[in-house]
């Protein structure tokens, strides 16, 4: 795929005035596994400690507030800057990072699906959704880390009980932060470590007034990271070209017939590897299950079966390349579409049914 169109309004965004200090308020209390936070501790390009310790020339001074990495003991100590930001009293602008999908809190009566801390006056849990409502409009920039936060991901699978969705489904795709930016989406389950840190670094340079507006595609992903497909970067693609396919997972050849969705998935993992060029997905024997995509996971399941388009395109491969590109364009559009049950209406439409007898035949 060629890089997608930029999001509407891209040209009108004003450059940042050049902040010298900035807070990063990072919540992972969405429906998440905290895997994106853990993933960024693996990043080497750049390392999180180099960003926090001011070792990258030109970046503003960064104050990181992330639950897993926080030196505080928790509770009020940890929440103080979040509450200050909610009151509009933080001493510097902030980037709001959201990790995890956003549950639908309109469907569960007196209960809640996920919370972060308590309301100081009532002692009741403060839901993640409350925090988002408070912080997102006040943030200079909002960044969604990982596929759960960007598009809904695993927890928004068909049959889920929580009605969860991506951040843009919750805030609206037209949302703009206090800095005039749309949500910056960095998908991946989890985020490829360096992809996230590189994006964050761009946003920080932008905050410092040293970089132009981050170029995002229509799904709000950084264009330079998600403009190509897994297949286009895969070192097994030559086998595909020769119509020489793996028939089980012992083979080092192209895996499209045993479940790899690489040809229609926007991701650079095969180029970049997982850590500093090492590991990855189909390049090292792991089928692409589409984990960066808005349609993940439902549009790619069952993961270990050949994608419907895969067999067709591999059959027609030799005679007609341009036809395949067109077909893939159609499948790529589907993979880039979220299922319709991800919404913030006060109803649950995921097909939730906790008893086996009624799930049969799904």
């Amino acid at each position, binding site marked *: 795929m060629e890089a997608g169109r930029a999001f509407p309004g891209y040209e009108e965004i004003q450059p940042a005035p050049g902040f010298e200090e900035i807070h990063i308020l990072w919540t992972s*209390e969405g*429906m998440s*596994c*905290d*895997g994106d*936070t*853990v993933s960024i*501790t*693996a990043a080497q390009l750049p390392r999180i*400690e180099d960003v926090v310790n001011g070792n990258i020339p030109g970046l503003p001074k*960064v104050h*990181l*507030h992330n*639950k*897993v*990495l*926080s*030196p*505080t*003991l*928790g*509770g009020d100590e940890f929440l*103080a800057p979040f509450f200050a930001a909610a009151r509009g009293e933080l001493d510097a602008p902030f980037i709001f990072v959201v990790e995890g999908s956003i549950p639908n809190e309109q469907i569960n*009566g007196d*209960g*809640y*699906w996920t*919370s972060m801390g*308590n309301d*100081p*006056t009532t*002692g009741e*849990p403060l839901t993640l959704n409350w925090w988002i409502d408070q912080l997102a409009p006040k943030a200079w920039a909002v960044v969604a880390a990982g596929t759960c936060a960007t598009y809904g991901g*695993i*927890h928004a*699978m*068909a049959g889920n*009980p*929580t009605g969860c969705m991506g951040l843009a489904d919750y805030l609206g795709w037209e949302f703009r932060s206090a800095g005039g930016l749309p949500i910056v989406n960095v998908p991946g389950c989890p985020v490829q470590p360096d992809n996230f840190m590189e994006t964050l670094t761009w946003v920080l340079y932008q905050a410092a007034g040293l970089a132009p507006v981050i170029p995002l595609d229509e799904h709000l992903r950084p264009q330079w990271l998600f403009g190509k497909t897994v297949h286009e970067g895969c070192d097994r693609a030559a086998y595909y070209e020769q119509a020489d396919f793996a028939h089980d*997972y012992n083979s080092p050849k192209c895996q499209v017939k045993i479940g790899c969705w690489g040809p229609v998935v926007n991701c650079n993992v095969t180029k970049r*590897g997982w*850590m500093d060029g*090492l*590991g990855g*997905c189909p390049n*090292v*024997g*792991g*089928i692409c*299950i589409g*984990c960066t995509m808005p349609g993940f*996971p439902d549009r790619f399941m*069952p*993961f270990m079966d050949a994608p419907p388009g895969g067999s067709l395109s591999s059959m027609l491969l030799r005679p007609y390349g341009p036809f395949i590109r067109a077909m893939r364009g159609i499948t790529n559009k589907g993979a880039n579409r979220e299922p319709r049950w991800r919404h913030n209406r006060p109803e649950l439409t995921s097909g939730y049914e*906790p*008893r*086996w*007898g009624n*799930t049969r035949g*799904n």
Partner: protein
Amino acid sequence: MATTRERIEPEQRNLVEMSWDPITRIVGNLGIYTKIDFDNREVVECKATSSLFRGYSVFMKGKDPRDAGFITSRICGICGDNHTVCSVYAQNMAYGIRMTPLAEHIFNLGEAAEYMFDHTIFQDNLVFVDFCEQMVKDTNPSVLAKAEQADAPHADVHGYRTIADIMRACNPFTGELYKESLVQSRITREMFCLMEGRHVHPSTLYPGGTGTVATPQVFTDYLSRLIHVADFVKEVVPLNDDLFDFFYEALPGYEEVGRRRVLLGCWGAFQDAQACDYRYEHMTDWGRKMKVTPGVVVDGELVTTDLVEINLGMRILLGSSYYDDWAGEEMFVPRDPLGNPVDRRHPWNQTTLPHPQKRDLQGGNYSWVMSPRWEAGRGEPPLALDTGGGAFARLYATALAGIVDEPFVKAPGDGTVQIHLPKTPGRAEQTLVWRIPQWSNAIERDRARAYFIAYGAAMAFGFVEKALAEVRKGQTKTFTDFEVPDEAIGCGFHEAVRGVLSHHLVIRDKKIANYHPYPPTPWNGSPTDSNGVLGPYEDAVKGTPIFEENGPESFRGVDIMRAVRSFDPCLPCGVHMYLGKGRTLKKVHQPMFGAVH
């Protein structure tokens, strides 16, 4: 830090309610709510609550069972691979697969790297912040003064002259050990990626084996990193001993912090490539041959090492959780494949019925975590086993069983585990000996973690040899094909980094009819159950003495946090602790790294 306080006076005690919610430096969503008697310097009551529900058991119903390993990895963002591996084990049983020895070695190498990575980053970058100079200065200045004067017994090995120097090395983001551990945690993750493709959700594991391309290169790349990691391990184990032994000396009575009855579960790790055929009928035998011995330890005695017995003893109780009971629902597995009756409260027979509701800490429901327990048949209610944060129970069970006899790790049956690390670039060969300690407490859970990093490294040396031997013989098959049966059941037992992990699977019409993963945190972080039995965090924090020098007004709760973090809480698997509800009397400003609020 404490958010609320309120005076109540049962039995003439002045109790102050204090809560920490969310708990930092753990993975996931946990709150701790306590009542503290400051006059007598003791925690009197504790409730643990998780405020997160995602519903894996619910949305996996009706899905293709082959997807289970990919999906369940997403339960946990730090040890997701443990779930994939456990799911593969359960699926192998259900599909009747035996994996090739090379595939088993690749799984074991990946998991060994995971233990090394995860224990390192959790210990040095999260736990040690509670023991660092900045924290000790703020909570126990007199202890820091002592540490400045205390020579580190192993200074010649790790290079820090005094205990205070070690504490300074642990300061977040700036300390030498803190920074070096981040670097080491990346090298071990690279080793992991060589075997399992990606961290934390692996790409190359499938039921039946792995797609990892088993060339000499992949194992050599792993070994070349391992030898340097082993240098680091040889330095940090004695450093841990120095730091923890100092706390016992400097604060007499510190052994009571986080102490509870010795009630430990370990479900075993590292399959024996020759013995494991994944048949339930043979599980007793191949379970005992795992390279970390499964076992249940009650009051210091090994009750069983039999995975079938362990399996049948599992009970999932409610009592304080936001779910409806499943007593009237379908029994999926009335008997196991050996003909033993399976309890209605066993994971195979569980139906998860979430019921969101208001949190009620005064005798009602307060957590999204259920209460897994183990029926020991000893005339007491099912036991609230803990995992000791994983490493502690693994070493304890392995030491008591005295079965493991590998080239680099031996359990001779004398209450020790002997971990041999060969000569590596910076250090001579070395044997580290872990001994069963007197207590199950915060310090010993933390100490065991360091030793298990060494255990993982030593095992990895052995697995690399075995894997390369297969490759040299030309036996490079890593995947065994299979068909999904119409109807089947399976179970997998494994050790997640922080403790016991099981997956129970029921297949009907080639679809998932029931799937229940039980990771360590539901065991450790469970709320009080229907029999009134406290969950392990609650139990361990209750009765914990307070050593912090700050009074109630500036109390930070470091002893309580050390007790809780010693279990290596990982709440996406589910926990939240609650300490009581009251009015806010005062907001207290605390020094925080990178923050001014």
